[in-house]
C-alpha cells in the first residue's frame, strides 16, 4: 500500500493552506490558524494522555505533521516547536508538580512556548552560551540574564524554555547547564523580530533577558550531553517540515507541467521534466519512510537519535533540491514574489539551517557510528607534507646560471 495517500488525506488543514501565502506576505500567523489547530487536536497529538495529550500513535503524529507542513510551513514550525519540542523538553526534565501548570496551556493552545538555545554569537555549541542563571537572593528563585537570538516563537511566546549556564556555588557539583522555564510576561524580558529569507510567517527573533525571574521549581540542571536526546524531536520536526515543503513543491511542479505548453509540447510529456518529477518522487518517498521509521522508533522508547540526525540532513537538503527543481520547471513565474514555489524555495533552505545544521549533525551521526568524538587539530599539516607552497617551474627555482 502506498502510505503517502493516507497521510495527505488524514488531516484537513485546507483553511491554513489557503492562508499560507498571506501568512508569508504579512509575516503573521492568522488567528484563525490557531483556532483550526486547536480544533484539529494537532497540539495534543504528541503528548500522552496523562499530561493532557491524545497519545496518538506515531503514524498519526507523522501524518499530522506532514499535513500541517504541507499546508503552511510557518504555521507548522510555530505550532510544533511549542506543542512537540517544548512540551517534550518540559515533560522530560520538569518537576512533576510544576508540569501541569506549564504544559496544559501549551496543549490547549492558550499559550505558546519557544526553545531558546542560540545566542547572537553562539549556535549549536553550548560551550559558547553566555546566558546565565543565578540565585535570586533572599526572595528565592533565580534570575536569568543574557540574550537569545534566532529563536522560533521568541517574538510572541508566553513561555521560554531556555538553555543557560548555571552559576554554581562552592560545593555544587551538578551540571554546568540548566533548562529554565521563563515566563515571558514580566518586566525583565524584551524581544525583537528578525526578518529572514523564508518561513516568514513563523515568529522568529530574539529575547533579551535582563534578570528575568524564574520560579524555584522552574529551573532544571541538565547534563548537556543528555539534552541532544530531547532536541532530536526538533530535528524530526525539521524533517517533516522539509517533507511537506518538498511534497508541495512537487505537487506544484506536476500541476504546472500538466498545464504548460512550450514549443507546442506540454511540459508533462517531456522526458527531461519527467526525470525531474521522478527523482523528486523517489527522494521524497525515501525520506518519508525513514522519517516514519524514526518516529516509530521513538514511540517505542528507543533513542533513534543518530537515525534522526541522518534523516534531518537528508530531508532538509532534499527539499531544497526538490524546490529548486520546481522553480526551474516553472521558469520565471517561479521566482515571482508570492508564487507558491518561490515561497517554498525560500522556506526549504530554512529547514536546513534551523536546529542543528547539516554539518553539525553529520558530526553527530559520525560519532554515533563509533568513530569517537571529534578530534581537533589546527590546520597546520599541509606544509609539512610538502604541499604548502607552489612548486618550482620546469627548470627548477631560478638559479644563478640557468641551464640549457
Amino acid at each position, binding site marked *: *500500500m502506498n502510505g503517502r495517500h493516507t497521510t495527505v488525506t488524514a488531516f484537513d488543514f485546507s483553511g491554513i493552506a489557503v492562508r499560507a501565502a498571506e501568512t508569508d506576505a504579512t509575516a503573521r500567523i492568522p488567528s484563525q490558524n490557531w483556532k483550526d489547530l486547536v480544533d*484539529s487536536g494537532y497540539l495534543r497529538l504528541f503528548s500522552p494522555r496523562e499530561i493532557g495529550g491524545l497519545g496518538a500513535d506515531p503514524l498519526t503524529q507523522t*501524518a499530522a505533521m506532514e499535513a500541517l507542513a504541507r499546508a503552511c510551513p510557518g504555521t507548522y514550525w510555530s505550532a510544533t516547536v511549542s506543542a512537540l519540542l517544548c512540551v517534550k523538553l518540559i515533560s522530560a526534565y520538569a518537576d512533576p508538580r510544576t508540569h501541569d501548570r506549564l504544559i496544559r496551556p501549551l496543549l490547549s493552545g492558550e499559550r505558546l512556548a519557544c526553545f531558546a538555545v542560540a545566542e547572537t554569537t553562539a549556535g549549536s555549541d553550548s560551550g559558547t552560551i553566555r546566558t546565565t542563571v543565578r540565585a535570586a537572593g533572599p526572595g528565592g528563585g533565580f534570575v536569568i540574564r543574557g540574550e537569545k537570538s534566532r529563536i522560533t516563537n521568541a517574538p510572541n511566546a508566553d513561555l521560554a524554555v531556555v538553555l543557560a549556564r548555571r552559576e554554581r556555588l562552592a560545593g555544587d557539583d551538578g551540571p554546568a547547564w540548566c533548562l529554565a522555564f521563563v515566563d515571558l510576561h514580566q518586566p525583565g524580558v524584551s524581544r525583537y523580530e528578525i526578518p529572514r529569507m523564508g518561513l516568514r510567517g513563523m515568529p522568529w527573533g530574539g529575547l533579551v533577558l535582563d534578570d528575568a525571574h524564574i520560579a524555584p521549581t522552574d529551573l532544571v540542571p541538565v547534563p548537556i550531553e543528555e539534552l541532544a536526546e530531547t532536541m532530536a524531536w526538533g530535528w524530526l520536526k525539521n524533517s517533516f517540515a522539509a517533507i511537506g515543503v518538498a511534497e508541495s513543491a512537487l505537487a506544484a511542479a506536476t500541476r504546472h507541467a500538466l498545464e504548460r505548453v512550450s514549443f507546442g509540447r506540454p511540459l508533462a510529456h517531456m522526458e527531461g521534466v*519527467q526525470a525531474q518529477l521522478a527523482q523528486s518522487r523517489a527522494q521524497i518517498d525515501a525520506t518519508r519512510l525513514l522519517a516514519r521509521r524514526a518516529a516509530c522508533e521513538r514511540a517505542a522508547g528507543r533513542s533513534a537519535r543518530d537515525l534522526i540526525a541522518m534523516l534531518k*540532513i537528508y530531508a532538509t537538503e532534499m527539499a531544497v533540491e526538490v524546490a529548486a527543481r520546481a522553480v526551474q520547471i516553472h521558469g520565471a513565474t517561479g521566482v515571482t514574489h508570492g508564487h507558491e514555489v518561490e515561497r517554498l524555495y525560500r522556506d526549504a533552505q530554512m529547514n536546513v539551517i534551523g536546529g542543528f545544521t547539516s554539518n553539525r549533525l553529520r558530526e553527530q551521526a559520525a560519532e554515533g557510528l563509533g568513530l569517537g568524538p571529534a578530534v581537533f587539530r589546527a590546520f597546520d*599539516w599541509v606544509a609539512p607534507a610538502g604541499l604548502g607552497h607552489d612548486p618550482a617551474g620546469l627548470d627548477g627555482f631560478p638559479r644563478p646560471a640557468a641551464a640549457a
Partner: protein
Amino acid sequence: MVFPNSPTDHGPDGFEPAWAERARSLAERVVRPTAAGRDRAGRWDHALFAELAADRPGPGLAGPLVPRALGGTGLSAAQTCALLEGLGEGARDPGFALAVGAHSVLATVPIRAFGSAGQRERYLPRMASGEWLGSVSLHQTRGAAADPAVAARPAGDGSGGWVLGGDLDLVVGAPVAHHFLVVAGHHGGRTAFLVDATTPGLRIAEAGPEAMPTCSWGRLALDDCALPQEAVLGTVGGAPDEVEPLLAALDWVFTSAPWLGLLRALTRDALDGARDRRLFGRPLTHSQSARFALADLATQCELAAGLLYRAAAQFDAGRPSLADAAAVRLFVASAARAVTEGAARLAGPPSATGDRLIERTHRDALFFAETGGVDVLHPVIAASVLELG
C-alpha cells in the same frame, strides 16, 4: 476534528532483520570465502547454490517464494527481500546474488502467479529444491522498452504450439540453467514462454558483460524452436498485462535487495578502513570531511532500506506498485554509486591485497544502474505522478 485510525496492518517499514541475519551468516560462511577467486575466474559454483538451497529449516534460498505445499519455504516477499539483503551482505558477491535472485524470484514468481497447475507442479518443486535452475534475460525485465529480440509464430499444425526465433543476451546463469522464461513478440501481441534448455534449436553460449561474472552469463540463440502449447505461461498475448509488469517490478525490487546488503558491507568496511588509514600523520577518522562522508554512506543505506521494504510489503499486501518498485531501483542504483565511490575514497588507493569488494561493486554497480536504466525508470515513475503514459 479528524482523527483517523492509523494504518496498523503493517509497520512503517516491514523490515525482517532476523531473516537477513540468517542469510548473512550462512552466506558469509559458505559463499564469501571463494568470492574473490570465483570473480577472477568468472566461475559459477553450483555446489554453493546447492548448499544454500539445501539449508533447511534455514532460509532455503532456492525457493523462498514457492509455497510450502510445492516444496518451498513459503516466505513472504519482505522475508525474501531480507534473505537477499543478507546474501548480498554476507557473500560480498554481486554476481552470485544476482543469479540466486534471478532463479528464486524472477524465474519463480511468474510461474507461481500465472502458471497452470501443471506448470506449477512441474517447475516449482524442482526449482525450490535447487535441482532445476530457472533463468531470465535482463533485457526482458523492463517490459518491452527495448525492441523485441525474440519473435514467435503459431506452429500452424493445429496443436496450439509455437515456434520461436531470435537471440537473447544478458541471460543470467544461462549455461547452467534448466529452463528460461522468454517473452516473444508475435502478431497481435507478446506472450511469455517457458523454454527448457534442451529444446531443439536452442543454442546456449557463454557470453556476457564483464560485470557480475560469477552469475555465469550466457546468450540464447533460438533457431526455429518448436514449443508445445504447455510452454505458454499465462494468456496468449497477455505478457504486457501479466508477465512483463510483474517481471519488471520483481527485478526492480528483489534484484536491488542484495545491493542493500552490499552497501551495508561497504559501509562497515569503510568504517574499519578509515580507522586504520592514516593521512597527514593522523587517522583518517580524525578528518571532519571523512567523518561526514561516513555519515552520508550510512544515511544512504537507511534511505534505501525504507524504499526496498515498502515495495516488498506491497507484494505481501497483494498490491505491488510498479512506480514504487521503480523508485527502489532508481534510489538503490544511485546509492550504490554513491556508497561505492565514498567507500573507495575512504579506502584510498587500492592495495594489491584484500578481497577487492570495492572494485567488484564499483564495476557491478554501473551494470546494475544500466540494466535498470533511468530512461525506463523515470518515465514509469513520472507516469504515476502525472497519471499519464
